[in-house]
């Protein structure tokens, strides 16, 4: 999933450097704007058919590739359990 997230970061969050970014690199420090992070969320929601609840809409949930993957996995698992 990390590769997919990297592609989305490049395409929707205007982060062309995403391909070479470390899994734990701070995406905001790499140049992701709040506008970019929202575009990324929308793309993730569409691709993985999930919806981010409001309590996950904070800076931390989208701050690194690892955390994004964990968040999405958690939502996908929650959906399957339901």
């Amino acid at each position, binding site marked *: 999933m990390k590769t997919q997230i990297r592609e989305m970061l490049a395409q929707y969050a205007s982060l062309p450097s995403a391909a070479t970014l470390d899994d734990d690199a701070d995406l*905001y*420090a*790499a*140049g*992701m*704007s*709040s*506008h970019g992070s*929202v575009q990324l*969320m*929308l793309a993730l*929601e569409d691709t993985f058919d999930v919806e*981010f609840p*409001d*309590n996950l*809409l*904070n*800076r*931390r949930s989208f701050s690194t590739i690892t955390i994004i993957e964990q968040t999405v996995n958690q939502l996908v698992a929650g959906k399957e359990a339901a």
Partner: protein
Amino acid sequence: MDVALNAHGSTLLERARRVAGIAGQHADDVDRNARFPREAVDALISERLLSIQIPVTLGGEGATTAQIAEACTVISQACSASAMVFAMHHIKLSSLVSHGIDSPWHQSFMRRIVDEQLLIASATTEGGIGGNMRNSICAIEIDGDTCRLQKDATVISYGRHADAILITSRAHPDAVTTDQVMTVFTKDQYTLERTNEWDTLGMRGTCSEGYLFKGEAPKEQILPKPFAEIAAQSMLASSHLLWGGVWYGIAVNAMTRAQAFVRAAARKSPGQTPPGALHLAEASSLLQQVRANVTAGLARYEAALAEPELLSSMGFSVAMNNVKIAVSQTVPKIIDHAMQITGIMGYKNGTAFSLGRHLRDAQSAQLMISNDRILANTSNMLLVNKIETNLLG
């Protein structure tokens, strides 16, 4: 924490009222000559109101944002430019208190603010960037233990009168525009070369001139947190809420004048409803909306301070943005009603009902971080953040 009384036994409110008394005597002169409200700031210093926000452990009084906002409202009813200086100073302190509390340099600087009642200014706005404060062009350069910064700071309120400036920049020369830090420079560590004057419609006493800033200081004066966090966790809320307190104060004073006008008319012809009475009723409903917005925002901030996750959530940002939009749009409407009520007496300068200064000062609210910019930011967040469906939160 109890800040009800200071050493002289006065409440915070009493101290703010004494400042307002002095600020009011000079408000028209400050406005006419676009000069720094020296008398009001001296009064803030002698009432020791410049350090109330600093924690008790560092010698301050640990005042809450709500208490500071109340002082803003009190002073603004007398002179909104003086109140805005007070508000902007405390917005800077909120960043120091929230993000500098674990750093030895910033702790000792806060003690200095208490001891010397230093006045702190802000330089986020930059030539080529405007009010988009989450981006910087200029970059701080670190050379051994020293940091150096040059910034085309197009608006620094009371820049020439401040004892220190908190200034944003990129974190290093290779950083992207959003990778920012905020640094404290004290007066002896920078030069200001004036590039813009401040001959404006309103808020003339804030003396918000533009400068080419050049500073050099020990690198430990850089706040140890990314500016993105500082902006989200302390500046966003304290700016909108303290500005809100100032703008509410302008509206309150316009309404006080309008009500005095209506009551004078009512007393002259008992039994008849004076012509302005309906306007007054309509405006009082608007005034209540503004007050409800600011106080609800203050309560929400107070609650979020206990939960860092909440503080950096989108829902919180949307709520603070909405306070700013609503207050800045509504206050000019209230003053407009007051003008309809007082008629030529409100339109003229130098009467007990004059409203020109109020009208002009209040116009700045929508531009001070442009409402268009804030709405664009909120509309983006609303693509994912859900509308709140319950009444009580």
